[in-house]
């Protein structure tokens, strides 16, 4: 029955390709993370057409953070951590840290202007941004926006904790056991960073296909249930 297997593989591959095509088609370009003159927000830049520069730079005397980070980091040293009697995770303060989440917070804690860059590119200065909708007059994310996490993480889903089998055991049945220190799930939709859950575990800053830059569609709370076995 070898033919069967081959055919099945083909059918499966075709199916996967179809799914892949749908989700890979969308990129950062023209999304809300595209702050350039062609970007997807109202208060986009009026004079900077490069997309990646708002976060990344290929060359710089001093790269402040990986991956080739170009954005001024927040100086907030204390975000605090989420605390709950039913949580068994050990949370580490993110403030002044070098985690991938600090990169997100360099815009989303609302303390640093989105156009505050290390490498100013050809303009020679920080790009000029629109104001009044997503951004305030100083270029920070406006305080009224839902995208503001703020400078406290005590009322947000916990991040910067090790998510491993030990945690799953301690939790006593409410969590799915991660497949590795790099991914929670076998489909590799939800990544871990050195075994830790970070902003980027749920969010993919380069792809807004699922809205809110979610790693996968949350219909039926599928993203939540990737980890939470409720």
């Amino acid at each position, binding site marked *: 029955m070898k033919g069967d297997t081959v055919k099945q593989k083909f*059918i499966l591959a075709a199916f996967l390709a179809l799914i892949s095509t749908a989700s890979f088609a969308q990129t950062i370009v023209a999304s809300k993370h595209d702050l350039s003159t062609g970007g997807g927000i109202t208060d986009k830049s009026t004079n900077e057409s490069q997309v990646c520069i708002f976060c990344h730079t290929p060359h710089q005397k001093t790269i402040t953070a990986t991956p080739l980070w170009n954005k001024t980091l927040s100086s907030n040293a204390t975000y605090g951590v989420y605390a709950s009697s039913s949580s068994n995770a050990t949370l580490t303060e993110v403030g002044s840290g070098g985690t991938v989440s600090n990169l997100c917070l360099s815009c989303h804690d609302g303390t640093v202007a989105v156009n505050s860059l290390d490498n100013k590119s050809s303009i020679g200065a920080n790009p000029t941004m629109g104001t009044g909708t997503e951004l305030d007059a100083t270029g920070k994310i406006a305080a009224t926006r839902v995208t*503001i996490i703020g400078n406290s993480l005590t009322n947000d889903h916990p991040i910067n904790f090790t998510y491993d089998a030990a945690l799953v055991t301690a939790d006593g049945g409410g969590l799915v056991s991660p497949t590795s220190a790099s991914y929670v799930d076998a489909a590799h939709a939800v990544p871990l960073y050195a075994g830790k859950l970070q902003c980027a575990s*749920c969010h993919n800053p380069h792809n807004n296909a699922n809205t809110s830059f979610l790693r996968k569609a949350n*219909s*039926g709370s599928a993203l939540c249930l990737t980890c939470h076995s409720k």
Partner: protein
Amino acid sequence: MILTNSKILFRSVWFMILLNTVSYPQILQSKHNLSITGPGTIKATGEQEVCKFCHLPHRNVKVVPLWDHNLSSVTYSQYTSSTFSASYQSQYPNLSSKLCLSCHDGTIAIGSMSTGNIAVSGTGNLDPDQSLAGSASSNIGGSTGALLSDDHPISIGLPHFSATQYNCSGCHYPSSGDKVPMECVRCHDPHNESKDVVTKKFLKKSNSSSALCLDCHKKTYWVTNPSIHQQSTKSLPVGWSHNGYTTVATSGCESCHKPHSANSPARLLKENEQILCEACHKGITNGGITEKNVSASSGGPFIKLYKHPTYSIDNKHRPVNASPATNSPTESSADVSTPNRHAECGDCHNPHAAKSGLHTTKTNATSNVLSGVWGLEPTDVSNWMQPTSFTRIDPASKEYQICFKCHSYYGLGTTTTGVTTIIGPSGTNITDQAMEYNVNNFSAHPVKVGSSSQTGSYSPKNLLSSQMSTTWNSVGSQTMYCSDCHGNDQATSATVPQGPHGSNYKYMLTGTAKYWPANAAGYLWTVRDIKNNLNNWQTNLFCVNCHPIYSGGTWMNNVHAKGNHQGSTVYCITCHVVVPHGSKRSRLIGYQSDPAPYNYNGTGNAKLLTIGFKKEVSPNNYSDNNCSFSSRGVCHGVQTPPSGSYDQ
């Protein structure tokens, strides 16, 4: 080889089933999946996400556990009962339970989130504002949303309960220091509806035979000396079960109790006490139950002429914690005295301990049906004085200890004569039975102690065994129940209970013969009735149930044999007390000076006449001078005692 479409389909389906079995989250299959794809009647009209009806990953106003549903501002009532000794936390309810109540008190729309409203629909279960309707089974707040007083208590504070009655480990885990406090989530897991596959209701574990309840409740007798209620495999009456379990044993606590919206809130009873009990104890087959009939609604003993006031007096039973340390309920003297006199099922029966079984003879030891009920043992005083000091016996070891709760100083108050002003159902004044059975009395039926141990009785203390029926011939050592004389007028059967519930005969007299002190026609019994075989004395004269008096042509003592005593106007109650529990005189003789109802106080000889009596060494040794009277012309007239003095 060509793989057919049907084969592909079959394999895909099989694969999907496998996936579901392994990892399909329980929340999605539960009624708490309020998304448009949820399985319940209440669900979103468009929203596809599940978690967001409660949780939000960022910027939560309520912080833990990332809560987003708007909270209710209702001030809730609190469960209370006289046996509830705990306090409540200053924050009542605790935030944990407020989260649940944000939907389940029925005041807030199901989709009312801090981030905006999610539209939901739910035929018949939602009010127009999309909050839970008062009629929805999951609404525990009642019509106002504030009604938690008929629900199991939550947010219990310190000090709470004793380790005698509760398992600390039900909420506190010594190993980890963690705890699941007595909040909604102690019993419910909001993310999994079917851990108890029978009850569902998001119970935290299977509650078969009340395993969940028993995590915390260490109900006296229930586990260690279980009641038939803990073990019975009989089916509950049709429509009675509210938790899906169908037998008395598997429904367990919830055969009688209801943790939410209980109709009789104190102790969370499903119904008012007697209505609750008669659901099963009704003498008719309903479901798998055919129990003895104690109901008033289907012809049981409580509709008869003379009865305990179980159905007529309600809301007087007020058990309180005798001691918070043991949490054992009792009632104070005031709780059982006028105006609070009452007799609820629970005064005589403990449903956590009661077992089936009939009375046996020659004992006063508490029978199975009275297991686990507390009682009173009086501290006896001198002859015909009223005991006013009692020791609480829990459980009562003797039946009379249960009766004494109401039929003694404890429930009657002070009386110097034994007679109270309370008129009983039979029309006579109720008397103090602890006084009547005082072991220092000159005579008493062997209800408390065998006749040999009746301290106050002069020798010979006992009747001869030949003076007794064969059932009751262990004279001296044998004891008896109150309910050997007082009980149902019907013979015991599968549907007819024993016990003094009710009877159509005065004083609830039971046995073959049920008339005292007068016969069926209302005429006072005489020795002449026996001598001349009148008025069906052999089957109607109450005393002969145990005391043959005259058998095989022989009188059992020479007093009854005396011709002068066999006249038509020499009544039993001319010499003996009408209430033959006990007497200040030997052999239940009464004196002229004794008050009613001991003294019949009728006209002519229909009253006590003796003023001096002396017991003889043998039943056939009596002569005129054993009894003395006030003057010549009254019976034997004035006599001098044969030896010593009267009053012996």
